[in-house]
C-alpha cells in the first residue's frame, strides 16, 4: 500500500473488539457423549498443590502425582485419541485428597477414575495375574458373601499361613496382613431376626413418645450399611440402628450391593456400574418416599454422593447423591447432637481414650473433624486426633503384595502419632483404615457410632 492510498473503511475497531452476544466460544467444540474432561483440565493452572497432598507421591518416587494423572494426561489425550493412558495411574490409591486440595476446582479424582477405567478396559491384559487379583480384591463383597456362610471356616482358612503364602506367590495378595474376621451373624441376619422395619418403626415410635415428639413424625432413614458392617463389623450397623431409633428415626435396610469404591480404585468401572445400578434404584425409590440415605462408612457415602454422579448416568443418581449423608453428620444437622453428647457420659467398655484417625474419604465431605469436635465434650471418654496423614491402606491398595511396603511407609506417620497418643484404642469411620491402624499399632479400633451408642442409648 502506498502512502497515497488511504486504507478502506472497515467496521473493525481494535480498541473495542467484537463482544457480540451471539458468539459462544464453547460452541466451537462439538458436543461429546464420552467423558470429555478438557474443561476441567483447562482450569488447572499448575500450582502443584495437589501433588503436595498426594500420599503416594510423598513416598514413591516413581509415581508422577495427581497433576500428571489428571489434567496433564487429559490434555495429552485431547490432542491424540490414541494416546495410551500412562500405566502409573494404577499406582494412584484413590484417596481423593487431590480434590480437596485444588484451589481451582479441577475434578481430579474423576479424571483419575476415568483414566483408570480406560486403562483397565483397553490396555490391561485380562489374563494377567494382576488383573485377576485386582478383580478378586475389588469384588470383596462376593468373597465376603461366600465366606459369611461359613464364617468360622473362612476365618481359619483366610489366615492359614501356607494358604496365604500360596496366595501371595500366585496372586500377589500380601501375606503380611491378617484377613478381617467374618462375623458369626451378619448385620442383615441380625436385622431380620430382630424384626426388620416393623420392629424399627415400633422402636422409633416409642422413642418419639419418650422424647415428647409427635408419634407419627416423619423421621425415617434408609441405611446403606455397605459390605463391611454387614459381613465383618455388624456391631457398627447395630449401633447405627440403635442410635437412630433413639432419636426417633425409623430405619429401613434396603437391598444393596457394594458401593463400588474398591472397583473405582481398580478401574473396574463395569463392575462398579452394575452394583451402582442396584444401589441407586433401591435408594432412589426410598428418596421419593421421603427417606434419606445414611451410610456409616465414609467411602460408601463418598461413592454415593460424588463418584456415582461423576462417573455414571443412571436414573435417579443425582437425587440419591443429594439425599445421602454420613450417619453422624445427618444427626448433627437434624438433631441437637452436640447438646445431647455434652449432657451424656460413658462408662464401661467404651470409657476410653481414643486415638482418632480421619479417613481420606471423610475429608472431601468435610467430616474429618467431626468426631473429634463432637466427643471432646463427652464425659468419660477422651479423643485425640492423630494427625492428617493418610493411613496408607486405601482399601485394596495395601493388600497388593507390591504395594504393601509403600502402604506401610505412608501409614508410618499415623502409627507414630497413635503411639504418642494417650489412648490405646483407635477410632475411625473407615473399615480399611481401621485394618491398617490395627495392623500397624495392635490397637483395637472402634467406630464413632459405637461410642455414640454407648453415650446416648439406654
Amino acid at each position, binding site marked *: 500500500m502506498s502512502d497515497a492510498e488511504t486504507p478502506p473503511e472497515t467496521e473493525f475497531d481494535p480498541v473495542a473488539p467484537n463482544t457480540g452476544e451471539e458468539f459462544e466460544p464453547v460452541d466451537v467444540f462439538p458436543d461429546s457423549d464420552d467423558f470429555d474432561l478438557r474443561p476441567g483440565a483447562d482450569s488447572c493452572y499448575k500450582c502443584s498443590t495437589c501433588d503436595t497432598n498426594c500420599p503416594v507421591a510423598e513416598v514413591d518416587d516413581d509415581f508422577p502425582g495427581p497433576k500428571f494423572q489428571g489434567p496433564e494426561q487429559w490434555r495429552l489425550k485431547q490432542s491424540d485419541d490414541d494416546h495410551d493412558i500412562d500405566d502409573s495411574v494404577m499406582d494412584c490409591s484413590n484417596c481423593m485428597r487431590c480434590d480437596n486440595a485444588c*484451589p481451582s476446582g479441577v475434578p481430579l479424582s474423576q479424571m483419575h477414575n476415568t483414566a483408570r477405567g480406560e486403562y483397565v478396559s483397553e490396555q490391561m491384559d485380562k489374563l494377567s495375574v494382576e488383573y485377576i487379583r485386582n478383580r478378586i480384591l475389588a469384588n470383596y463383597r462376593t468373597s465376603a458373601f461366600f465366606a459369611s456362610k461359613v464364617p468360622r471356616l473362612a476365618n481359619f482358612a483366610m489366615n492359614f499361613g501356607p494358604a496365604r503364602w500360596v496366595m501371595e506367590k500366585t496372586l500377589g495378595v500380601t501375606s503380611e496382613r491378617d484377613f478381617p474376621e467374618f462375623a458369626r451373624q451378619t448385620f442383615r441376619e441380625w436385622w431380620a431376626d430382630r424384626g426388620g422395619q416393623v420392629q424399627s418403626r415400633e422402636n422409633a415410635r416409642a422413642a418419639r413418645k419418650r422424647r415428647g415428639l409427635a408419634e407419627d413424625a416423619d423421621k425415617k432413614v434408609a441405611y446403606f450399611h455397605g459390605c463391611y458392617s454387614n459381613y465383618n463389623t455388624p456391631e457398627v450397623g447395630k449401633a447405627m440402628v440403635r442410635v437412630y431409633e433413639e432419636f426417633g428415626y425409623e430405619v429401613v435396610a434396603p437391598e444393596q450391593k457394594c458401593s463400588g469404591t474398591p472397583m473405582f480404585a481398580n478401574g473396574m468401572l463395569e463392575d462398579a456400574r452394575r452394583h451402582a445400578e442396584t444401589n441407586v434404584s433401591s435408594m432412589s425409590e426410598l428418596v421419593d418416599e421421603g427417606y434419606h440415605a445414611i451410610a456409616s462408612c465414609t467411602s460408601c457415602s463418598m461413592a454415593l454422593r460424588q463418584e456415582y454422579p461423576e462417573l455414571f448416568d443412571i436414573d435417579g443418581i443425582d437425587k440419591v447423591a443429594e439425599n445421602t449423608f454420613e450417619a453422624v453428620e445427618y444427626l448433627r444437622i437434624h438433631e441437637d447432637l452436640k447438646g445431647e453428647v455434652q449432657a451424656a457420659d460413658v462408662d464401661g467398655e467404651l470409657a476410653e481414650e481414643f486415638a482418632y484417625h480421619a479417613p481420606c474419604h471423610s475429608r472431601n465431605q*468435610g467430616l474429618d473433624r467431626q468426631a473429634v469436635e463432637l466427643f471432646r465434650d463427652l464425659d468419660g471418654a477422651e479423643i485425640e486426633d492423630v494427625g492428617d496423614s493418610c493411613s496408607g491402606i486405601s482399601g485394596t491398595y495395601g493388600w497388593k503384595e507390591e504395594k504393601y511396603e509403600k502402604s506401610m511407609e505412608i501409614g508410618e506417620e499415623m502409627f507414630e502419632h497413635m503411639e504418642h497418643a494417650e489412648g490405646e484404642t483407635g477410632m475411625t469411620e473407615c473399615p480399611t483404615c481401621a485394618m491398617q491402624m490395627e495392623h500397624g499399632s495392635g490397637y483395637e479400633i472402634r467406630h464413632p457410632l459405637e461410642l455414640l451408642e454407648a453415650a446416648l442409648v439406654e
Partner: protein
Amino acid sequence: MAIESEVLVIGGGLGGLTSALAAAHEGADVRLVSYKQSTLRQASGLVDVLGYTPDGDGPLTNPYEAIPSLPESHPYRKVGVKTVRDALSLFDDAVPTYEGEHTETNALLPTHGGSIKPTARYPAGASAGLASDTRDTLLVGIEEMVDFDAPHVAAHLDATGVPFDVRGETIRFPGDLRADAKVTRYAKLLDTNSEVAVRGRMVPAREALAQRVNPLLEDEERVGFPAILGDDNPGAIRDAVGDHLGVDVFEVPMGPPSLPGLRLEDALFSALDEAGASIETGNPVVDFEGEDRIEKVFIEKNGAKIPNSADQYVLATGGFVGKGVESDRDGVYEPIFDCHVPHAEDRYDWFEGELFGDHEFARYGVATDDDLRPLDASEHSEFENLRAAGSVLGGYDFAAEKSGSGVSIATGYAAGQRAAQEAR
C-alpha cells in the same frame, strides 16, 4: 435444624484463620468453613505489613508510621494502627516459630527471584538469610528444581547491592529422585532422614545433602537452600545440615506449592484447634437466608445443601484468585452474599495497558464501614451481622504495597473480635 455456632467464619486463609482465632480468644463458639484447603499453602510464608506506599515509595523502614497517611479507603485506615499491632501480637502468640517481633522495622528477606522483600514477620528457617546480615552467602540450587536457579538468584541479589558476597551453586539432590519430584518428596526424605545411596554407600539424607554441598563451600558463613528442608522437623534438618557444614543454614521462600506456607497453615490450624474452634474444609458456602440479618448459610455437598446458622458472620473468602470476588462481562461481584463491589462501569477502565501499570482491578473488593461491615451502593451496611476481612476487601493493592498478610491479619483480628463481642 442447622449446624449452629455463635460466630461463623467463611474462608480458611490468613484472614479467616485470624478472625476465627480472635473470636475464639474472646470466648465465642466459633466455626470456620473453607471451600478448599487453605490457600496458605500457596503463600510464601512471609508476613508483610506494608513494604511500599500506594505511590510506590519504599521499601519502608517502619510500616506502622506510614499507615496514618494511607488513603481513607485503605483497610488499615478502617481498623487503625493499634489494631494492626494487636493483631500482629495475636499472630506472634499463635505461631511461635516466627521471628521479627523484636522490632517495628521491616526485615529485608531475599526471595527466590533474587529480589529483596520488606517483611514484618518471617519463619525461623529464613532468619539466617536476612539481607541486612553482612555474612557472605552461598546459595545452593537443586538441579531438578528449575524454580530456583542459584547462580541466577545470586547474581540478582548481588545487583540489588546487598552488603555481602553471594554466590550460587547447583547440586544434584542425593537419592536420585525423579526430575519432577514433589517438594513434599524432598521434605519427607529429610524429615525421616532415610538413607540414600551416595557413591555406593548408604548415608542418611541430611548428611548426604551436606556432603554434596561441602566441596562447593568456600569461606561463606551461611548457606541458603530453596525451602524444601522438611515439613515436620525443619529446625532439626537445618541444624543437622548446618552442623555437617559448619555454617548457618537458611531457606529461601519459594512459590507454590510452598512448604513454609504449609507449615504456617499447620501452625494456625493447630492454634485454632487448641482454642476450641470447629473447622470444616472441602465444601463451598453457596447461598444464604435472611434480609437485613443473615439467618443461615448453606454449604453445598454434592447437591445437598447443609444449613449452618450463627449469630455473627465473617466473610473472608479472598480476592479474585481465591474466588471471593469474581467478575464477568457485566461487572464485578461478591458471589455468596452478592455484596456490592464498587468498580468502574466500563470494563476498559478496570486495567491499564502496561503489564505492571496501576491497574484498578487490583484494588477491587467490598467497601466497608469502620466496623468492617460491607456497604451497598448507597453506602448503607449490607447486613447487620456480616463483617469482611482479608483480600475480599477493596481499596488496597496488596501486590504493589506488599501488605497482603498484614491486612488479612489486622482485619481478620478486628472482624473476629467484634463479631465475638456482639455475639456474646
